[in-house]
């Protein structure tokens, strides 16, 4: 049985992630838009690095970042 790439939960049909990690991934993407707007310019990798350093970043977000870090698949 297939499970989410980051936990034992069932993944959503259109994703590799479960509902929680999918929410975290979506927040990560929408957060990037806000961050680039506020910083004027910021590349994806720096954004992820900064989020990992912050203690208030959510646990699920950090797990998704670890997965996406080496993945340059973000096409925003």
């Amino acid at each position, binding site marked *: 049985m297939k499970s989410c790439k980051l936990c*034992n939960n069932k993944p959503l049909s259109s994703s590799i992630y479960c509902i929680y990690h999918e929410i975290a991934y979506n927040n990560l993407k*929408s957060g990037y838009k806000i961050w680039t707007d*506020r910083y004027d310019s910021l590349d994806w990798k720096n954004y992820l690095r900064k989020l990992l350093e912050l203690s208030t970043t*959510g646990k699920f*977000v950090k797990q998704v970042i670890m997965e996406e870090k080496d993945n340059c698949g973000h096409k925003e």
Partner: protein
Amino acid sequence: MKNIQFYENDKIIKKGYSLVICEKPEAAKKIAEALSNNTYRTRKIMDSIVFNLNYKGKELIICSALGHLYKINLTKTQSKLPVYNYSWIPINKPKNKAVIINLKINLIKLLSKDAKEFILACDLDQEGETIGYNILKYACNEKQKIAKRVKFSTLTEKDIKNAFSNMQKHIDIELAIAGRTRHAIDFLYGINISKALSLAFMSFSNKYKTLSIGRVQGPTIFYVVENDLQIETHIPLPFWRISAYIETAENGKTTWLKIEYIKEKIIKKIEAEDIVKNCKGEKAIISKINKNNFKISPPVPFNLSGLQKEAFKLYRFNPYQTLNIAEKLYLKALISYPRTASQKLPAAINYKKIISDLSKLPEFTRMTNSLLKKKRLSPTQGKISDNAHPAIYPTGKITKFQLLNTEKKIFNLIIIRFFKLFESPMTGKIILIHFNIGKYKFLSSSKKIKKQINSKHNEGNEKHLNFQIAKKFNVKRIKIKENFETAPRPFNQITLIEKMEKENIGTKSTRANIIQTIIDRTYIEGTKLKSTPLARALVEVLQIHSPLILSSKMTREMEKQLEEVENGKTTQEKVLTIANKNLSLIIKEIQKNNKSIGKKLFLATKNLVIIQSTNNSLSKCTICKKGDLIITSNSRNRALICSNSVNGSCVVKASLPRFGLIKIYKKSCMTCLWPKIKTAFKGKPWIFCMNPNCPNKVKRKR
């Protein structure tokens, strides 16, 4: 059953006495003491003390219950859900309690036979009225309509005598019916939904697991899960703040004063950098000075949630614990009735007498002396009122016996809060100085408390008083600080109660119990309340298939309807019909999606074991070499299992001795390779193989 007549010193008391029914034995004793000036007689019948006294020419017999004597049960067991038929029966579980309850009921039945008058003296709230109503209905043979009611908020002599002089002709039947309806709805929801979920679990896994959820528990679990999800998927967004340091001179000394840019959050970095760039080389000029007086009123009287919050803040007592302690203090007549929402204290309680009575306590002499010097004593009052009881206050009574440490802490907290109510408000001044640096506005503020009680509020200084409009200052430094928006805070027991209050679910007396129940059922854990995978799975499943259980709206509406029953605006039957309709919808949805709900819950319980194993692993499993050995337990037994045994890939699973520290022995069993356990038996070390079918054990048995 033999008809025992109540007599003392071989003297038969006239038949036709008044039977006073109290909620607890301690309350019965206090009432007997108060009404007879300690000249009451006692007799032990059926293992209970019964008090007999003469009050104003009336023969009184005072007996007590033990809280609820009756509970709701299904009329007949049926496998098809939902079930709606219920009846009230004597509490029959656990066995030892059932024996005592039965004796109590038989005693009241007996005493009620020769009574000509019935007086209900249970606690003055919905639960008290329900307890009394049930006793009068079932044990006293339908006497609820003719019973009289005494109402008091403290167990002091004055209050009790006053209550017996102003006895109400009837008990509050509508309040009792509302209480009975609440019990019925909670029972029907609990039993039907829990059973439906357990059956769903079984339909997928062929295993039985109790999955309980209730009408108020559902939304409460949902709040915690929702909040946790927000924390765990939180993206901190950046913003910036600018502060400048200006040079000021005071008494020949130069100091730097920090002033803040008027906008608290600058959401673009470039905007913040522009401001700093444009401010460079400019002077800070005072454009406006505002001085405003403010008043800090003393705190309001304690109601139950106020007391619970303060006890948690100061001593980390959980709300459930605080309520229990407060109830004990009430039964000792030291404080007024604690299950109250009121934040108001009526003058009739005689503030001065209470303060002068408490002045006998040496630790409060200084405070009481200063209060007793006041010409007029008028306490601060809060906004919330409660028809049944005033706010919590000390009665002025001092106990001869030593209080437990925890009781003393709560008692002192209530006394100190009572004294604080009579303090005059603190006044202070807030000074706001507006600066212009170039075209940008900056601000400096300071607070000064005139009456310096709380040093925390006294951070301000008087330097500003010398400042004048148009005065110029050198800007020594200007800097940008990068900040990030914080995630919501996890709930603790107090903030969760606050949330329940805000959403208007549960009652002041039940909220603490509900939180305790969902902790006991492993839906939430820790002091910072965190949802477990089981709670998450439950919420996830119910959100899809039966969102009504999680909805605060449904629970809130039901609370409203129960209030209407209490006020006589609607009937129990109407409310139960609506509740049953909702219930039937919920059950249908669960039954329709039986398999998928069962699967989800089964996986969640599996995850629970995996998480437990990573947190509490004793060692690696010696059989499968992959799983972790963990101890799982319920209230009666405990077992050692391999985390892989949950999905069937390992066989290690065995029960453990109920007591004693368990350690995994360094060597595994030579015969079967199962892990060995080291524990102690009667003080001696005991090492054994945990395999119940170990060939060595079988051989020894033979």
